[in-house]
């Protein structure tokens, strides 16, 4: 099985407290810690496990700048065989469809049976996988939390739906799946693993290499654009308990008693 996994370098929500910049229209990005999108690690792990079982290879691809190369290397340290960086000034400011169109161009240059994305990334839209599938006329399933092989032409996938239930589907190959967290336990990547792939060549492809008209992607081709970031005034929020820990606990126990918590 030839598997392509689409990954993204994102600000790490576990490592950062997000602040706006002084102009108030963007994040203060100076000290942000970036990492690979959490969902993508599950997708790469799943791809590696499938290839371990049935053979084939795993390629990881991302659309991004030079710094995105580090997330490809990280996923290669996990066990992905190849990495491809799709990078061009013309790609900057792409909306979801722009990203999907760039990925589609790369996919059509290869031959993949299975294309995986994370169920969502930093923007929380969960859009690229479904768009990519529609552009390729491949079937699609989102929020996949189980993959079982059936035969060379078909796989069985479970989707996580409301209430913790699982919707089972049969889906024809080639297809696109967006992978939900919890489908597996992504393997740990140590410094040694990263060093092993530090000098592996990662090809970089731009709009010209992919045969993409620059006017159809990037900011020029985007119908949906982010204008600014802001933190709304959501009213008072919680009553914050302050003081020493003992004082806080005393106040909290009073409230718990009043509200039926004790």
């Amino acid at each position, binding site marked *: 099985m030839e598997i392509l996994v689409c990954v993204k370098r994102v600000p790490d929500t576990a490592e950062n407290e997000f602040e706006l910049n002084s102009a108030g229209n963007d994040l203060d990005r100076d000290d942000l810690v970036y990492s690979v999108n959490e969902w993508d690690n599950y997708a790469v792990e799943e791809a590696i496990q499938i290839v371990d079982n049935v053979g084939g290879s795993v390629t990881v691809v991302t659309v991004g700048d030079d710094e995105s190369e580090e997330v490809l290397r990280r996923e290669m340290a996990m066990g992905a065989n190849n990495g491809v960086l799709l990078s061009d000034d013309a790609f900057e400011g792409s909306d979801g469809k722009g990203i999907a169109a760039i990925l589609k161009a790369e996919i059509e240059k290869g031959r993949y049976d299975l294309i995986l994305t994370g169920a969502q990334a930093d923007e929380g839209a969960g859009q690229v996988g479904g768009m990519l599938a529609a552009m390729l006329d491949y079937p699609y399933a989102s929020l996949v939390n189980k993959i079982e092989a059936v035969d060379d032409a078909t796989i069985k996938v479970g989707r996580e739906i409301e209430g913790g*239930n699982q919707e089972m589907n049969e889906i024809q190959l080639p297809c696109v799946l967006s992978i939900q967290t919890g489908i597996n336990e992504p393997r740990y990547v140590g410094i040694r693993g990263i060093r092993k792939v530090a000098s592996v060549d990662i090809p970089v492809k731009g709009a010209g290499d992919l045969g993409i008209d620059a006017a159809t992607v990037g900011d020029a081709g985007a119908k949906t654009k*982010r204008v600014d970031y802001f933190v709304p005034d959501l009213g008072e929020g919680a009553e914050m308990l302050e003081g020493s820990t003992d004082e806080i606990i005393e106040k909290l126990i009073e409230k718990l008693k009043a509200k039926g918590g004790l």
Partner: protein
Amino acid sequence: MTQIFAYIPFKNGSAEDVALEFPAAAGKIDPTADLTAVVTGAGPDLDAVAQEMAKTYKEVIKISHADLAYPNAELVRKAMTDVLPHDAVILVPHDTFGMDLAPGLSVKMDAAYAADIVDFEGLDGTTLKMIRQELGGAVYTHVTSDISAGAVITIRPGSFAPIEAGSAGGTVNDKSGEVKDLAAKRKFLEVVEAEVGDVDITKSDVLVSIGRGIEDEENIELAQELAEAMGAVVSCSRPIVDAKWLEKSRQVGTSGQTVKPKVYMAMGISGSFQHLGGVKGNPFIIAVNKNPKAPIFQVADVGIVEDILEFMPELTEAIKSQ
């Protein structure tokens, strides 16, 4: 004039709550717009929901086909693409079916796409300004879409105040005949119901709910001791189940259990909308988190900025000594 169409999800012949939220959302996009409900399915369930929607919507488009009895996004997409005008603004709930349907629908309609919208700031010409969140709810953004060639927009359920169900007699237009061949490369097999765990968290009046802040599996004991002292039950957010530290049946959220306790202790939980979507019945929420900017503090009644790993044992001791 903007034409807005709302895809109505339903179960057992009854529309989901979001059906009454779409009219509020549409009014914020363009108060003069024509709003039409779209229902797809088969049999008496479909007819029932079409009639129900005609009480609130002036026009209801019904698309009936045996293969639509269980909503398969690929088929629903084909049906909607065949029936709806190509400059339509289509509203879809941002739920597990909407995430399957909407991105591909925007490609096939050649329309702008905006996901998980929580508010609209109105239409300027053909530019629609919207509000959404990024980074797990840590920040908000304004986004604009050029809707001159149509748009597919998913709205977050629960973000728009529902209107009262009406009693006006709207018309139901059966457009099933306009749907050409329906064929899909994906076939629905079955729904596997969630396993029932050893403890039913939906029955507990007090929940000690833990999130990422618990950091390590062995620290779960601290939450169990606190819950025991309080006569409460331990529940959790998604990352705890992903890490296999607690059973899925303990997970609160849209992809887990919906709980209605009197008191909800959110310990080291940041408060994503998927998590809060499972907390109903307006409980008294106490949030303890070492990050003062955690979104949970916006919705909690009482907030405490502390590390739960230090705070929980002290609280347990204090309760025991009462």
